[in-house]
């Protein structure tokens, strides 16, 4: 049976010298962080999976309706025109990540990342249930293939696959809604070919990831894990081993032999390797901060358990900064966190402003294709299309008026109140005419749309164009001199 080699800083424990994969079999661990993580993890899973089912304002809490390009988020309905808000959402999350990582290290990885959450609270418990604890799992892996081993493995992988399929289906429900998903599931795969292919590939990928790949994703693939290493400094909260207190490490027996001779000579670490055996990424936290550490806090609970049993103070391995572990002061307020928090605040302010500019409708006025203006006997005429997009889930009643323009300007189209269906849009002609003698050159018109209740309004400026006024005057004079008979 292969035992884990002593983890070093020079190589990745989970990859052998020949490049093949070495599986880790993390031991069971109990303690306060494990307990809180289990509760928060199960809550997160329930939250992720419940989102498509909970209705807010008549739509699922999260429904990214790609087909109709409408995005329902907790009662908000965003349309394709609001896509620019994504910029603030993504940069906002980015700044939040910067700030949190500088302050408290990789809490995201250990506590909230779906990779960790699903692995630690769904897949590992299944494995533990079918194959037993770490010792039994390692023994089973090394055992020759028997009917019993095959049965366990088949049951385990079937369950993995089923869980992966459920997660993938609910993930798809984010995009198509639950009733639509259910309708598609009852049809033959061929009738929803692309969705079926997506589900099949995504289920396979999830299954592979959680059944085999696991920590390799965090160590080698995830750019976010790497990025965080660059965002931390000696004051960031990490999970670390207090070498000043723990070293020189020696077993209880060793310290009894030597410790009596030199009291205080023995460190608190009893070299039990519990912290190594519980680590899901196969590192020895006592070697210091390492890129593999996802901050799951399993080693804290493992070490605390041993310390309590030995009547020594807890926290030999603990959440602390590198400075704190070295006995120096941890500064929370420092240039890095200040800059990140300023960036975050600016981001939040701009995002809040951006969201406050969201209106329940969109309004656009564009000139019709063709000549920019028309002149007849009485009027100079400009023709536009006005488009109103109702972003609410109820019928919108809108009024379109000119708020700034010459008093003799005549508006045709959009007379009275127009109804726009829920989440619908209308495009109708909007025509302006100015009496010909009054035309003195191009001018701006400010057109506004407001809802009937007067709760909001949007304004758009368009230019009223016409011929050179001198030509109009000449023509008028000519007409007058001919007594209007020439035509």
């Amino acid at each position: 049976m292969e035992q884990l080699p002593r983890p070093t800083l020079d190589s990745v424990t989970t990859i052998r010298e020949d490049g093949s994969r070495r599986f880790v079999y993390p031991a069971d661990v109990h303690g306060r962080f494990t307990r809180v993580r289990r509760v928060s993890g199960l809550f997160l899973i329930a939250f992720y999976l419940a989102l498509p089912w909970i209705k807010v304002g008549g739509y699922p809490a999260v429904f990214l309706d790609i087909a109709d390009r409408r995005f329902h988020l907790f009662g908000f309905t965003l349309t394709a025109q609001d896509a620019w808000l994504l910029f603030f959402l993504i940069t906002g999350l980015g700044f939040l990540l910067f700030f949190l990582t500088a302050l408290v290290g990789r809490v995201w990885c250990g506590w909230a990342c779906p990779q960790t959450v699903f692995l630690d609270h769904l897949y590992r418990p299944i494995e533990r249930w079918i194959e037993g604890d770490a010792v039994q799992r390692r023994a089973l892996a090394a055992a020759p293939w028997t009917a019993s081993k095959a049965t366990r493995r088949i049951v385990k992988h079937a369950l993995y696959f089923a869980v992966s399929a459920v997660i993938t289906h609910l993930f798809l429900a984010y995009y198509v809604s639950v009733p639509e998903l259910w309708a598609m599931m009852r049809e033959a795969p061929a009738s929803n070919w692309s969705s079926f292919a997506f589900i099949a590939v995504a289920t396979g990928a999830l299954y592979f990831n959680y059944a085999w790949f696991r920590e390799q994703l965090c160590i080698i693939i995830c750019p976010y894990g790497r990025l965080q290493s660059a965002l931390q400094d000696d004051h960031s909260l990490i999970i670390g081993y207090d070498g000043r207190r723990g070293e020189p490490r020696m077993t209880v027996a060793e310290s009894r032999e030597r410790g009596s001779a030199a009291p205080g000579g023995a460190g608190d670490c009893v070299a039990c390797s519990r912290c190594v055996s519980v680590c899901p990424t196969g590192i020895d936290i006592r070697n210091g901060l390492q890129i593999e550490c996802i901050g799951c806090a399993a080693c804290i609970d493992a070490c605390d358990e041993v310390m309590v049993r030995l009547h020594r103070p807890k926290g030999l391995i603990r959440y602390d900064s590198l400075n704190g572990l070295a006995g120096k002061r941890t500064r929370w307020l420092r240039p890095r966190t200040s800059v990140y928090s300023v960036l975050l605040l600016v981001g939040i302010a701009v995002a809040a402003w951006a969201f406050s500019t969201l209106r329940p409708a969109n309004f656009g006025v564009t000139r019709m294709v063709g000549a920019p203006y028309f002149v007849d006997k009485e009027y100079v005429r400009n023709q536009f299309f006005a488009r109103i997009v109702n972003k609410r889930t109820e019928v919108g009643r809108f009024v379109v008026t000119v708020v700034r323009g010459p008093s003799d300007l005549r508006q045709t189209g959009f007379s009275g109140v127009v109804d726009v269906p829920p989440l619908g849009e209308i495009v109708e002609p909007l025509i302006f005419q100015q009496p010909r003698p009054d035309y003195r050159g191009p001018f701006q018109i400010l057109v506004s749309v407001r809802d009937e209740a007067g709760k909001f309004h949007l304004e758009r400026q368009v230019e009223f164009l016409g011929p050179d006024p001198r030509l109009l005057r000449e023509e008028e004079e000519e007409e007058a001199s001919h007594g209007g008979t020439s035509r």
Partner: protein
Amino acid sequence: MNPNTPTQPPEEPLRPHVYDGIREFDKRLPNWWLFTFYATIVFWVGYWGYYEWLHVGPNNHQRIEKAIASIEAEKLAATASTKLDNASLWQMSRNPVFVEAGRATFNSICATCHKESLRGVADGGIGANLRREVWIHGGNPLDLYNTATNGVLAKGMPAWGPVLGQKRIIEAVAYVLSYHHEGEPMSIQPAVAGK
């Protein structure tokens, strides 16, 4: 003992370069990583062979052409099914389904200029009067259809074909025709052209 010093001496060969005091081991890549790398090469060979070398698969240009062709075929099929001539348009103008659909389109779009009464200038509107037997751009059903589809750009009548699509234009024409009847006396007076 400093916890940050390696617990084992490096047994791997070190690469010669040093950057900021950081040295690099010459370790073997993970096998799964190498596998994905080789898999992409295999995929490339297949992909390149399929699209670029043997030209089995369609290129983007061909794909677009094919999509356009199928759209045009669909359009043609739709046109072929609605036989477009004066007689059929008259027939549609007596069909309440067409007329009702046309009324909706007309009142939301055309009525801006031609008024809901269809009387246009005679009712204070901008567009031509569509109730009289005197027409400006031809009064045959097909003339109406062509005027609506292609517009009269000099007069400000936009080309509605690309905006509304053939179906809605046919319906609107049927609605206008429902105020007329086949064989009524008809004259064309381009001189009064919307003024």
